[in-house]
């Protein structure tokens, strides 16, 4: 057992998997000598050499394309797109090439590709370095989308993503890098597609993702003092979504609130709400609610971030509103 922060938990996952399978590669901007723009590949160049840990030009389309071609020819590449905001530069390779190759060719090619990228939500870096776009990739058949909210989940899901024969978009939260958690020694593998009930409760289900999980848990602590027991579900995988776990919880609590750092229209919360309507409508005592930042780009600066994003207080307020 050792205490690890989110960043080092990810490095451990990469190191363990690269040791385990020589076909595993890491390529992207600054992943080599610099150790990653955010330090998430520190030590890997020295451990595995410049062919397996390889710096690329600032060329997002070919970063993913190299991964697609390498994955089709026997490698297990991990490609890094530094900020999720940069996905627009390489979307064709993600949603037409990586996602559809196994399908188009009748299963002739596997696509064991991890596209790791960072959501810099609430880092105050402005409108081109702040977006969580999990729904863009969640909308594409053939892609898996993973977004861990704790160091242990990050490690276990990264290892599973690397071993998966499908393309996985792996979303890391920069604002969580220093969060620590005890992680057991030895193999940590967390299955893709399985939600985690982070806290059990009977009154309201909160489905929270990424940064919002810890805040939902903080809100639950506050509300418990008033005798309100919240069940907090972290889907961990955006797609395929573990709807069963959410439905089982809503059938128990009869109320659901979805909290995300991504925006409301056409979003993750809409998807969860619709699934609940389909499968648990007659169990609901209140409409499903969504708590998100408002429909606007994120301007530069922490003050805006604090104003725009849900926090433990606004989550607790939303829950109280649902119980009136």
């Amino acid at each position, binding site marked *: 057992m050792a205490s690890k922060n989110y960043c080092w938990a990810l490095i451990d996952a990469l190191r363990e998997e690269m040791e385990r399978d020589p076909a595993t590669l890491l390529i992207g901007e600054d992943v080599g000598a610099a150790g990653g723009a955010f330090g998430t590949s520190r030590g890997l160049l020295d451990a595995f050499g410049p062919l397996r840990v390889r710096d690329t*030009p600032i060329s997002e*389309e070919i970063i993913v394309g190299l991964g697609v071609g390498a994955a089709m020819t026997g490698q297990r590449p991990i490609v890094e797109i530094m900020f999720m905001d940069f996905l627009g530069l390489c979307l064709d390779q993600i949603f037409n090439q990586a996602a559809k190759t196994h399908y188009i*060719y009748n299963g*002739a090619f596997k696509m064991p590709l991890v596209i790791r990228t960072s959501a810099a939500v609430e880092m105050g870096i402005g409108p081109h370095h702040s977006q969580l776009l999990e729904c863009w990739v969640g909308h594409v058949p053939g892609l898996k989308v993973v977004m861990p909210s704790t160091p242990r989940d990050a490690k276990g899901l990264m290892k599973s993503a690397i071993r998966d024969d499908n393309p996985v978009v792996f979303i890391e939260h920069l604002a969580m890098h220093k969060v620590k958690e005890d992680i057991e020694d030895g193999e940590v593998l967390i299955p893709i597609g399985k939600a985690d009930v982070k806290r059990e409760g009977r009154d309201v289900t909160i489905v929270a993702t990424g940064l919002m999980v810890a805040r939902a848990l903080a809100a639950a602590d506050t509300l418990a003092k008033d005798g309100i027991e919240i069940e907090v579900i972290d889907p961990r995988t955006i797609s395929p979504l573990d709807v069963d776990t959410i439905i089982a919880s809503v059938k128990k609590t009869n109320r659901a609130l979805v909290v995300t750092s991504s925006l409301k229209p056409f979003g993750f919360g809409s998807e969860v709400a619709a699934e609940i309507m389909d499968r648990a409508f007659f169990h609901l005592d209140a409409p499903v609610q969504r708590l998100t930042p408002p429909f606007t780009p994120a301007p530069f600066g922490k003050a805006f971030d604090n104003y725009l994003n849900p926090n433990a207080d606004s989550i607790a307020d939303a829950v109280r509103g649902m119980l009136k």
Partner: protein
Amino acid sequence: MNDFIELFERMMLIRLCEEQLNEAFAKNLFPGYIHSYLGQEACAVGVCALLDDRDYIMSNHRGRGHYLAKGMALEPMVAEMFGKETGICGGRGGEMHAADPDLGILGGNGIVGAGLPIAAGAAYSAQLEGKGRVSVAFFGEGASNNGSFNETMNVAAAWKLPLLLVCENNLYAEMTPFSETVGEEDVARRAEGYGMPGEIVDGNDVLAVREAAARAVARARDGHGPTLLELKTYRWGGHFQGDPRNYRSREEEKAWMEKCPVARFRKTLVEEHGVAEADLAEIEEKLRGQVEVAIEKALEAEVPPPETAMDHVFAASGVK
């Protein structure tokens, strides 16, 4: 001489396949678009003549010439074009997509330019493996104006990837003359700026293509990096069959058809290498019969059951 006959056979097979698919299209027997390879046969055949099964090729939307030149079996390839269950991809890929991993054929593409980065990825794999495999990206001059071309040229040169970038310059980017879209009509001249050799080749001369490809393949196999080959050629048909070709003259088409790569090589074989025309005619008839059978079989075959539409969205294996 055997290899010359093989070059002729491959070119003729592509020619007959394209002609007969066009006939099927004209009779309304073809389900969808046809992006004809007529007129460009020497490009695919000249390059693939240098490749082994272990080498990779990445094709584009105009892919049948590449598939056949690299050795894809005729009948499943044709059936795939018709979207039939007996197709090489079970009929799921259709006219713009066919692949055969055992022959290193990594597929076609519906997106212009998208194959270049993927071919570079296969070249990266080959480089990691270190056994002299090479990878070939086939693309048109239209794709050379896509960002993917820039990114691929640069990474291929920087990483010394064993990659051939084969630009078939057929003068028309979809339905726009290439000359209207660029300030410099020779794509190969861009190579110098990226730090790799670039060569302009007569794309209607299969032996010239083969010679240039031999230099590029040797360079790649020996670890010296990529080469850009620009094969000057002409697309006899439209961007797709049925395209009215109102952006160019019939006279221009006729002039290029007089430079037919298949007829030209046939003449070379007969006049300079003493091959009997009767032998070539016999080959042509044999291949014509094979293509006819392939198309008949494809027409008779079933489309995949619609309820298989959800197959292969994901690969089965998860955590291993």
